[in-house]
């Protein structure tokens, strides 16, 4: 019995030591994140840190446009003082982010959305609602964001202004079946600002009969500017549904961005596809969200995407035929880019 009591006492002591160790460990091993103060200086530091640790194009833009993020900090930190208003702080933070020249970078507040849209605003729009109405008329078919009709010369015309909605397989089957008698197809995605990558893949999968390497994707693995995962191949698989077998022309302008930019990248790899119009706007980083101490939301590019040659498409994709709207055609009610596509398909 004495021996048993000794064992019991030893076990009791061991358990007590375990409990003490638990408490000590938990009290001393807190996993926490530095919280910047909710002040103009604190918000600027928090924003600079978010971009420094999470933004995926700092190295690329250092090379492409000479961006020096440390120098940006020095320059903008001096513009902030404790007495400035929210609006003034917003202007400084927006100016700092505009150095990135990225349409996927935004600040969202209750009174304004900070943005840098020079990739589109500094160039001719090359699209006109007036002309689009003329080509589409009023009796066009409309299905889940896809507006389409057959033009006079038996060419199918599809106007698709956004990838924001999930494209249904049935929508594409019905549209392509309806347009099947046409001798060619025009897909007009001018000023399509993007949306869902999966929609871009679903649509593009109708234009290939075999698996195609269309690009690469990777993500950050750490806080360093060069901490990236290996590039993973993006393979476009042919749709197991109605697939288009005739020539296709995709119309682009500087407003083609993000998922729409990806769609152009995919289509460039597909056979019988020609890109006509202006260079796309780019936007080759899948955006993530974060926030500042004052509550403003931040959006930034987090996962870089590349073309099949491992080149970034962040600053856009060149068309096969560079064509812009002309004033003469506009006054005659002609869309120069659509007419060029019709010529290509009519040959």
């Amino acid at each position, binding site marked *: 019995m004495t021996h048993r*009591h000794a064992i*019991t*006492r030893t*076990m*009791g002591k*061991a*358990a007590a030591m*375990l*409990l003490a160790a*638990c*408490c000590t*460990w*938990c009290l001393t*091993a*807190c*996993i*926490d*994140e530095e*919280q910047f103060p*909710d002040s103009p200086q604190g918000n600027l530091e*928090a924003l600079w*840190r*978010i971009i420094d640790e*999470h933004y*995926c194009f700092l190295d690329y833009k250092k090379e492409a446009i000479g961006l020096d993020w440390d120098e940006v900090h020095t320059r903008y930190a001096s513009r902030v003082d404790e007495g400035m208003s929210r609006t003034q702080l917003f202007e400084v933070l927006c100016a700092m982010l505009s150095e990135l020249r990225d349409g996927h970078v935004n600040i969202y507040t209750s009174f304004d959305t900070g943005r840098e849209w020079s990739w589109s605003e500094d160039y001719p729009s090359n699209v006109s609602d007036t002309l689009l109405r003329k080509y589409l008329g009023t009796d066009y078919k409309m299905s889940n964001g896809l507006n389409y009709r057959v033009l006079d010369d038996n060419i199918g015309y599809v106007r698709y202004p956004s990838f924001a909605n999930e494209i249904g397989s049935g929508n594409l089957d019905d549209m392509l079946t309806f347009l099947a008698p046409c001798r060619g197809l025009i897909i007009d995605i001018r000023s399509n600002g993007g949306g869902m*990558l*999966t929609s871009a893949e679903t649509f593009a999968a109708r234009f290939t009969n075999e698996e195609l390497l269309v690009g690469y*994707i990777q*993500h*950050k*693995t*750490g*806080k360093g500017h060069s*901490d990236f*995962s290996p590039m*993973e191949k*993006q393979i476009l698989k042919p749709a197991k549904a109605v697939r288009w077998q005739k020539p296709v022309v995709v119309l682009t302008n500087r407003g083609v961005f993000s998922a729409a930019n990806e769609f152009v990248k995919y289509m460039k790899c597909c056979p019988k596809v020609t890109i006509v119009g202006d260079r796309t706007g780019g936007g080759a980083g*899948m*955006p*993530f*969200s*974060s*926030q500042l*101490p*004052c*509550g*403003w*939301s931040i*959006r930034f590019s*987090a*996962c870089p995407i590349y073309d099949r040659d491992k080149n970034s498409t962040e600053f856009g994709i060149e068309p096969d035929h560079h064509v812009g709207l002309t004033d003469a055609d506009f006054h005659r009610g002609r869309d120069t880019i659509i007419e060029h596509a019709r010529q290509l398909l009519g040959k």
Partner: protein
Amino acid sequence: MTTTDKRATLLRILTTALAVCFCTTMMAQDESTPTKKVTHTEMVAIGSADLLDTYLSPEKYKGSEMRYISHTIRDIPGDRWQQQIIHQGSIAMADDRAEDGNLMGGLYTLDYALQRPFHPGDGQWELRVGGMANFNLGVLYNSRNQNNPAQLKLSMQLGPAAAVTRAFHLFGKEWRARYEVELPLLGLMFCPNYGQSYYEIFTRGDYDHNAVVTTPFNAPSMRHALTIDFPLWKVTWRVGYLGDYQQAEVNNLKQHAYTHALLLGWVKKFKVTRTRK
């Protein structure tokens, strides 16, 4: 035989069969023995939640949490090891310091522990020491994010679990104070890589260190509770404090969920008898 005779015969047969069955059952019950003492407690925990997940936001979110806990201890006389099974379901709602963002969390946890009881001293103390395994499944949702709006919580952990119980008398009734603690030492958890999107993981199937081994060095976590059981109105009530501190720093991402909650519940004790066949 007439129809009436047939009915009467059938009735006699059925009555005899029922009587045989009843007697057999009674005999079987007579031969049964009590095999398990079960202490089952159902509790509600209401308290504060402190949430951080740097995949979603660098900001800490603070708010409230409500948790349902089903706590069962099965003692099998003669067995060295006793079972403890805990089911927990929790919902947390928290705001950032600017009160401009909202984080919602839901988590289910299953704990299974095998513990060996000791009765040191005067017999009023009971110490249970053993090991536990737990399984966690839940989600953390940030209402303001776009491509990274949620974080899947999926993990399994192994570690020691201990409990100390002391019985004492107050107001002429028996009260029990209990302190229990769990410390995960080895586990496996799901986590996206630092800047990896769920699109890459679940749509494309590009995995990158998404199953991470956890130890006290990268995930120092602990759950403990101090409770008092007391009889009132023919019911044994339990009140106490629950502290649950779950932390991890994996794939360069930090997460923590600290809960401090008030426990309130009732205790049922019963014996489960096994019938011999």
